[in-house]
């Protein structure tokens, strides 16, 4: 899986090779979109020079949720139960706020059984990357529609989806998400930049990545097939990313290009492809997204970004050190405290 791309340097700023970010051998179908996303994820951490030991991977159940086994074996990983990964990740990242959390889920795992926990992850703005590998079907149980299947789209056997689709991005926007992006497993460049920006973000960075299921949902009639997304994909911006540890070059046209400083000091540069789109305007982003869905477009790019929204740990005013490993004297109050409590109950 983890063959370095041509452009990648042989080692990153930690002196690690891309092999150090490799995972186990994938057992997904050849050509599955999810495999490409695994590649992009490990490259992002490699490029950003984040030690794999500082990353914690989370997933639910599904083909997509298996993928954390296929990238970054040197990172701890928790493959939880179906649709309830957000709570596990929330707990883990409360226990250790210094970890880089990355969650991988599927459209079924997130938008069907998992919609309740997803809603609350977004509301809490837990600092983590949350990737939905969206193929519109339940891959692992052999291709039933999920809640993201667009009405009118068909299964291989001919069944037609007839309920309103859940647009994961629109939903997240509505719920106050601080980082909402959409991409495509086949768009290496855009996905890479969005992933890096997501890692650099200080809250829940939601990436809805269309990731075709070659076995059950890559046919005509599907709106999650490679060809559909290639034809109907509508990138909002041309994106580039400058990590905090690199110098920014200032040579760009502020009229057409916007630069956003992310939580960790990195920079996301957005060259507008659609005049007037402003990823800091939640209400307009929402309208645009709802309109695009009507028109059968797949809007991609940085849909919305609020780099300043406080994450859960900040809101709770947690100490900087991981709660998990605070020394006993910091977590067990003294004998005097208990004496005083006993006295107050006398």
């Amino acid at each position, binding site marked *: 899986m983890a063959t370095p791309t041509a452009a990648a340097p042989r080692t990153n700023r930690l002196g690690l090779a891309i092999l150090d970010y490799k995972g186990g051998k994938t057992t997904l179908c050849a050509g599955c979109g999810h495999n490409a996303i695994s590649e992009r994820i490990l490259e992002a951490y490699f490029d950003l020079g984040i030690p794999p030991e500082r990353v914690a991977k989370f997933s639910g159940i599904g083909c997509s949720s298996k993928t954390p086994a296929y990238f970054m074996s040197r990172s701890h990983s928790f*493959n939880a139960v179906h649709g309830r990964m957000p709570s596990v990740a929330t707990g883990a990242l409360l226990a250790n706020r210094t970890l880089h959390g990355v969650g991988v889920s599927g459209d079924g795992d997130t938008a069907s059984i998992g919609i309740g926990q997803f809603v609350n992850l977004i509301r809490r703005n837990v600092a983590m990357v949350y990737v939905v590998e969206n193929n519109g079907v339940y891959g692992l149980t052999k291709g039933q529609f999920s809640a993201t299947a667009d009405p009118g789209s068909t299964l291989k056997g001919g069944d037609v989806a007839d309920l309103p689709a859940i647009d994961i991005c629109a939903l997240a926007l509505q719920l106050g998400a601080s980082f909402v992006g959409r991409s495509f497993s086949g768009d290496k460049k855009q996905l890479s930049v969005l992933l890096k920006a997501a890692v650099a973000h200080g809250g829940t960075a939601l990436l809805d990545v269309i990731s075709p299921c070659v076995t059950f949902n890559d046919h005509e009639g599907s709106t999650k097939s490679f060809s559909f997304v290639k034809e109907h994909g509508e990138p909002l911006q041309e994106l580039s990313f400058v990590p905090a540890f690199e110098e920014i070059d200032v040579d760009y046209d502020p009229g057409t290009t916007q630069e956003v400083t992310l939580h960790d000091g990195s920079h996301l540069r957005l060259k507008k492809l659609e005049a007037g789109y402003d990823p800091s305007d939640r209400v307009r982003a929402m309208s645009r997204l709802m309109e695009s869905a009507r028109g059968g477009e797949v809007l991609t790019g940085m849909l919305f970004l609020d780099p300043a929204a406080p994450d859960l740990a900040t809101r709770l005013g947690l*100490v900087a050190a991981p*709660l998990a490993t*605070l020394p*006993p004297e910091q977590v067990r109050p003294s004998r005097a405290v*208990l004496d005083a409590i006993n006295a107050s109950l006398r």
Partner: protein
Amino acid sequence: MTTEQLEVTHRAGPASRTVVNDFAIQVATVNGSGSQSANTVLLRALFQMGIPVSGKNLFPSNIAGLPTWYTIRVSRDGWVARKKEVDLLVAMNGETARDDVTQLRPGAAVIFDAPLALEAMRTDLAFYPVPFDELVAPVSSDARLRKLLRNMVYVGVLAGLLEIEIAEVERALARVFGAKQKALELNLRAVRAGLGHAATIEKHDPFRVAPMDATRGKIIIDGNAATALGALFAGVTVVPWYPITPSTSVVEALQGYLEQHRRTPDGQASFAVVQAEDELAAIGMVIGASWAGARAMTATSGPGISLMSEFAGLGYFAEVPAVIVDVQRIGPSTGLPTRTSQGDLLSTAFLSHGDTEHLLLFPGSVEECFTLTGQAFDLAERFQTPVFILTDLDLGMNNWMAEPLPYPETPLDRGKVLSKADLDRLGGFARYKDVDGDGIGWRTLPGTDHQKAAYFTRGTGHDEQAGYSERSDVFEKNMERLRRKFEGARAALPQPVVTGAGARVGLLAHGSSDPALREALVQLKQEAGLDADYLRVRAWPFAAAVRDFVAAHQRVYVVEQDRDAQLLALLKLDLEPSLTARLRSVAHVTGLPLDARSVTDELLAQEGR
């Protein structure tokens, strides 16, 4: 009633004799009417006089307007279980008054709101009408306040009738109202109004109090607060929860303590209390946090336990610590949210599909709510598995006398965790390998700065290296190891408490049944001359001592507060058939805290006495 002594005690008519420090007062009122402060003042005043007391609140699942009964038992012998019989009724609720009076035994006394005109109902009771409205009128001109102050009037009346020391009432008032000087004064005036009225009453019941020295050094606390303190002193850091009666006050109390004792000088928190969106999320967060190395817990009740079922299986199989407090309430489904029970044993022991089993702890007192909660964290981390603490509404929400909570004498046991230094030394590890022969593998925490620290946690079949495996032999071996680990817990869990030895009859119970059992032991001896030993089990799977106890007795009565005799069921599963043949069931599913009388009567009936 079966014994002469007690019958004499409760004879009606003018106080032919006195009953000192041995009766139960029941205040029948309406919830939301502010009687709670009055009852607390009453309880504390008695306690401060050195007299053993206990309080039981029987309240509806409702916010305001429905009947509530608060019972204070005064017991010179130190009994704190619910007393079945009410000796003094304070009838403030017109809706239930006639019913309440009907249920009294002859000889009881009734203090009631005069307009209710209950005195004509029976001739075998002592009736004391009190003109509450008249008495409270001069105290305040604010109608809303007067409604609240009526309650303090009955405190005054009772104080007068029972000879409760007014100084102690004043101290108790000061404690309840603290700095609120204005409120304190008003309430004190209401008490005095009641006291004044009491002076005009011709007493013709036998009940009174007298100072003792039986509560010195003791505290009063409810089990949920004690549980919260147990967690605080166990160093809990992550507390996700979802409100549900009767567990809500565990976390609310804990949050208060954490705010007070676990902030750095600059206000940073060494804890995270998070209100989850439901119980599935609460247990998920606990599992995530524990996996990452934090001491995490949640508190819930039956419906929440049911919702945690899937995650409980993940915790068991992926071997992640978790502490879950189940403050039990009665009934399947929503049942009666404000009534107590011990009905979650079986479903919690086997919570989740596919050969899952769990460690359960059964605190039997508020002290044990404190100590066993502390231990639960050690056990969860030691055995890398969810630990359920099963208390109940009676233990959790009622006020109990207790010895001061003991400071934990052992350091936190964080279980088998490998650090970077360990890994440097070992060169690596296998997460699920039984290297120590106890079935427990070593784990690492995410963030451990070592190339070989990471492992993959999953609810799917896995080998010793935590790798995915569908091999039969690998699966079977792992399951057998889990079984060994579980078996190993028997010796490490809190051991049973045994009272007495050598009798032919044994009693066996758990949790909040304890006070009634201890009292029943004495009743059995005093009333029927029956010697019995008593074992209180404190954990599942059972310790070897449980087996020994059953083996040492001809008949063992398993007393519990549920319909399906679930404690007995667990014993059947655990003991050899020759021993289960000795077990008899005494199971109650009333929702009321267990009382000794019911136990004694049924046991004697079964004994054929």
